[in-house]
């Protein structure tokens, strides 16, 4: 275990508290505040994984998960970014993509085979001859990808979601973001500040260089953070990665929970009036031979290891850098005890004089215009070769750390995914955002500012711009902030070097996908000459680091290699999620919102087997016999009860109620009488039937009507849509959930009902197709209809939902002596099929019109002047003989029923089966089918083709309908 600093003001660890964890089966200890990666580093781990393709050793390189180098399996979850994951007691950590260990990987020899695997080699080689591919595919599949997940993996942890509200959202909690948040909050706005790291401060937090007036950057960060935290109207989300930004400022992200939180991770989605993006920069990787050898790391990474986590990255560190942060890191690490043989600075001039003096004071050799060209050491850096930029002079040094960084890369992801454009800027060497979306502003270091005061001034300005978007800031205030901004130093000059003077066979532009400079050259030579194509052909930037490593270097190198006069090539397109996000996190709490009927629990108690049907859960069967034979026979012979509460139920009233009904229903509803039930249907503008149900007149321009279960949710919308130009005065009330429905059916139904009601329900007093209102047990108000959907004497009882249980139990009790039993949706389906009553959606599909399924009798052709929906199309379709027709059929030779959906064929497809069952009532298999018109004649032989029937057809014949009780006496008895 390495000694750890415990005296630095910037530290985020508490060395007094040890945290045990298991790594490769052995117990280790980290320190409170450690990430998994830093705890491993403290325990001497340098090789964290092997690379995807060549199994090269990989180590700690950046710090915010820009590459897959440090991904590991933790507690069974693969590909966890150990750099950004808190160490928790008892974690079980394993290496990935190794045969053996990361230290000694048996697949390591592959690295020497790279000549056999040029960019896109499997596109080129594995398909000729074609026989090879299935074999090759298996091998490639085995080798491809990192991490393993079993198919029955259950994601551990608690996942949550939150939809916070705000006026201004600031992405990035560094100096610019905090200043912006404060500026907007001071204007009275509600601000949300999202920061990816577990604390505020950004790049200021780990830097001890001077900010201004002898205050260090770190002290300034603490000061700003305190101010932010005490501002009531700023809400801070730390450890929260922004993953997307969309139209109209929809911002998404996820937060990693701490021990105190009730969630492991939670998905965040919010809509801001205005957004400030202050995401800062990452470092731009320096390209040279073996630039990803463990021991090579970026300047910020080295500095943060020491300042944040109390770990000196190594004993001897050579620096090859192109920015002042590199010099700052060298000075700081020197002072903490690192030997620094040399700093190679790409820049000939332009360094911060204060830093230059600090370097000189410490007698560190600084060579300007120099760069590292090769890291040596089989598994870790042992030595480094440095050269002057022209390649003429050379030096080598022994070292265990090589700090390498070409400069900065702005994190423009949130802007770009929200449709901002990027344009190359020669001064900063950045791709800078242009054409920002409305009400979205950029601030801070991502615009090229390096001076602390400039960064904050740009944050302040952006915060005020956001306030202006919310109409909470004056133009004068904006002007002042702009002036203040302009008085500060402008964007810093960026280094332009892309690659050290090397050939690039082992120079890696993308770590995740093992793409070398040589691979990029191969892609370009094959004609894939722009970054978007190179990305797809070579894989550069396709990995889990979301192009954090190659994002900037790829377009720069592409331009350079093709000798393009200016950087015309744009970087590849960034897409959400900007940071790898767990599916479990996106799923959040994952509520399944399904409706239950008022007697849901009673039916479950009675053994109901439930299915999700539309938005409802319904009892489909009441036994494991899915033919529902007993339920069916009991309805035919005795009496059954079905919960039909899911039916759509509505009241329509008001002066234009009848007009509205006449518009959407095909029947003439002006003729219905009170006390009668009118069965009718709705069509769409193509005459296709979409709904059927009954209408009851309660009074003048006051009706109660029902719709099918599936249409209930759209009925108000449908009627209002088709009357939207009329200015009609009518009112619609959805009573679907207000009324439970009991379907009491069977020859004994009347005997049951008359026991409990206060009126005469004899056939004369309450006949077929009539409507009555009465009370059960002097208390429960019931709307009752005599219908015959299942083909038996049948009462549909509509009852207020709260009374539903009571009525159900009363009927059950009263029906005992008549052998009353539950029946489910499947039994009803068979019963009504035997009677050839249609269910829309089953006997009809999208193109089926009213006439096709034999409901033409519902259409009142004399009703004119209402512009009834569907009538224009029906009039036209009436003369069309080519349409499919609904027919009934029986199977030949007492054969079984075909499956629902089976095709009807001769030399081509001629129709399909809608519903077919082996009927117990009829002792034979019957069904309904939609067939082409010329096959609809009684006696036509039908051939049925079922899935996977291997050409073995079964046969039936078109017969007269209905099958059961053709005279219709049973439902009228």
């Amino acid at each position, binding site marked *: 275990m390495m000694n750890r600093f415990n005296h630095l003001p910037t530290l985020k660890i508490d060395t007094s508290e040890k945290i045990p964890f298991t790594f490769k089966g052995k117990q280790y200890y980290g320190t409170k505040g450690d990430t998994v990666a830093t705890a491993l580093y403290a325990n001497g781990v340098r090789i964290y994984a092997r690379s995807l393709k060549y199994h090269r050793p990989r180590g700690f390189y950046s710090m915010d998960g820009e590459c897959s180098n440090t991904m590991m399996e933790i507690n069974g979850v693969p590909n966890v970014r150990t750099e950004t994951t808190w160490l928790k007691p008892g974690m079980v950590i394993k290496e990935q993509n190794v045969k053996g260990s990361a230290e000694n990987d048996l697949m390591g020899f592959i690295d020497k085979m790279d000549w056999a695997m040029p960019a896109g080699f499997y596109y080129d080689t594995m398909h000729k001859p074609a026989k090879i591919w299935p074999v090759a595919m298996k091998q490639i599949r085995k080798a491809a990808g990192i991490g393993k997940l079993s198919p029955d993996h259950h994601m551990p942890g608690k996942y949550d979601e939150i939809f916070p509200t705000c006026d201004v959202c600031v992405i990035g909690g560094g100096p610019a973001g905090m200043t912006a948040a404060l500026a907007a909050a001071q204007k009275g706005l509600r601000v949300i500040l999202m920061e990816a790291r577990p604390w505020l401060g950004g790049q200021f937090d780990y830097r001890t260089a001077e900010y201004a007036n002898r205050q260090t950057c770190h002290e300034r960060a603490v000061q700003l953070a305190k101010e932010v935290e005490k501002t009531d109207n700023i809400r801070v989300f730390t450890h929260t990665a922004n993953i997307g930004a*969309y*139209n*109209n400022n*929809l911002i998404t992200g996820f937060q990693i929970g701490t021990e105190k939180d009730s969630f492991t991770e939670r998905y965040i989605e919010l*809509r801001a009036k205005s957004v400030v993006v202050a995401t800062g920069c990452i470092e731009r990787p320096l390209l040279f031979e073996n630039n990803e050898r463990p021991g090579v790391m970026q300047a910020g990474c080295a500095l943060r290891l020491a300042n944040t986590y109390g770990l000196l990255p190594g004993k001897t560190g050579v620096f090859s850098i192109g920015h002042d942060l590199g010099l700052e890191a060298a000075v700081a690490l020197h002072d903490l005890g690192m030997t620094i043989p040399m700093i190679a600075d790409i820049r000939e001039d332009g360094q911060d004089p204060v830093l230059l003096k600090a370097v000189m004071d410490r007698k560190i050799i600084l060579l300007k215009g120099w760069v590292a060209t090769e890291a040596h050491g089989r598994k870790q850096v042992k030595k480094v070769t440095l050269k002057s930029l022209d390649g003429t002079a050379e030096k080598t040094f022994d070292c265990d750390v090589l700090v390498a960084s070409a400069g900065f890369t702005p994190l423009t992801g949130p802007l770009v995914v929200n449709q901002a454009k990027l344009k190359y800027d020669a001064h900063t060497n950045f791709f800078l955002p242009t054409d920002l979306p409305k009400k979205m502003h950029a601030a801070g270091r991502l615009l090229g500012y390096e001076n602390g005061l400039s960064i904050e001034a740009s944050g302040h300005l952006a915060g005020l711009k956001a306030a202006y978007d919310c109409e909470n800031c004056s133009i004068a205030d904006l002007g002042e902030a702009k002036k203040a901004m302009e008085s500060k130093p402008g964007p810093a000059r960026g280094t332009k070097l892309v690659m050290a003077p090397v050939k690039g066979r082992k120079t890696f532009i993308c770590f995740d996908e093992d793409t070398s400079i040589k691979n990029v050259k191969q892609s370009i030579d094959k004609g894939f000459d722009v970054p978007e194509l190179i990305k797809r052909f070579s894989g550069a930037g396709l990995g889990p680091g979301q192009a954090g490593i190659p994002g900037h270097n790829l377009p720069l190198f592409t331009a350079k290699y093709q000798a393009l006069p200016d950087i015309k090539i744009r970087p590849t397109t960034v897409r959400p999620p900007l940071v790898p996000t767990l599916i479990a996190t996106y799923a959040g709490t994952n509520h399944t919102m399904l409706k239950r009927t008022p007697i849901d629990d009673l039916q479950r108690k009675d053994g109901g087997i439930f299915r999700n049907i539309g938005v409802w859960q319904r009892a489909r069967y009441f036994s494991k016999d899915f033919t529902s034979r007993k339920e069916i026979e009991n309805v035919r012979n005795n009496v059954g009860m079905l919960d039909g509460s899911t039916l759509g139920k509505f009241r329509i009233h008001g002066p234009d109620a009848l007009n509205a009904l006449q518009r959407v229903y095909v029947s003439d509803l002006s003729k219905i009488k009170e006390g009668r039930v009118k069965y009718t249907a709705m069509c769409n*503008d*193509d005459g296709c039937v979409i709904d059927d149900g009954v209408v009851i007149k309660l009074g003048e321009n006051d009706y109660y009507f029902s719709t099918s279960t599936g249409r209930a949710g759209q009925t*108000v*919308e449908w009627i*209002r*849509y*088709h009357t*939207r*130009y*009329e200015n009609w005065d009518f009112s619609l009330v959805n009573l679907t959930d207000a009324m439970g429905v009991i379907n009491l059916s069977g020859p004994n139904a009347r005997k049951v009902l008359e026991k409990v009601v206060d009126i005469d329900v004899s056939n004369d007093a309450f006949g077929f197709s009539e409507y009555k209102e009465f009370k059960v047990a002097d208390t429960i108000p019931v709307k009752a209809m005599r219908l015959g959907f299942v083909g038996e004497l049948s009462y549909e009882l509509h009852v207020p939902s709260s009374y539903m249980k009571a009525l159900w139990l009363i009927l059950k009790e009263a029906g005992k002596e008549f052998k009353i039993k539950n029946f489910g949706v499947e039994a009803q389906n068979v019963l009504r099929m035997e009677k050839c009553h249609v269910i829309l959606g089953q006997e009809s599909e999208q193109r089926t019109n009213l006439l096709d399924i034999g409901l033409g009798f519902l259409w009142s052709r004399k009703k*004119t*002047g209402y*512009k009834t929906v569907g*009538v*224009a*199309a029906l009039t*036209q379709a009436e003369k069309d003989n080519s349409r499919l027709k609904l027919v009934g059929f029986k199977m030949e030779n007492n054969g079984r029923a075909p499956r629902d959906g089976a095709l009807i064929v001769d030399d081509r497809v001629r129709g399909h089966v809608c519903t077919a069952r082996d009927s117990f009532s009829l002792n034979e298999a019957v069904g309904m089918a939609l067939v082409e018109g010329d096959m609809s004649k009684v006696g036509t032989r039908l051939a049925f083709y079922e899935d996977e029937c291997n050409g073995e057809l079964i046969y039936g014949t078109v017969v007269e309908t209905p099958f059961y009780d053709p005279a219709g006496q049973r439902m009228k008895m």
Partner: protein
Amino acid sequence: MALTITCPICGKRNGYEFRYGGEEKGPRPDEKDLTPESWCDYVHMNKCVAGVQQEWWFHRDGCGSWFTIFRDTTTNLEKETPEAKE
């Protein structure tokens, strides 16, 4: 997901609360003199402009109103405040 619709009753809301009701085409044509062709044109033919169009939306999860908005089909952004229509 990112689409917003401004309902004249409820204000600006997430697009997933609404259902689309097609381009604004004017009232249903009179039944008299209606040919199958003219009827088909009314029901099925759309302008499909790449630019700003007036279109119908229903606030399904909200107040239950049909109303029109002007939306730029190329950016998926609304252009003006809609006229209220019950």
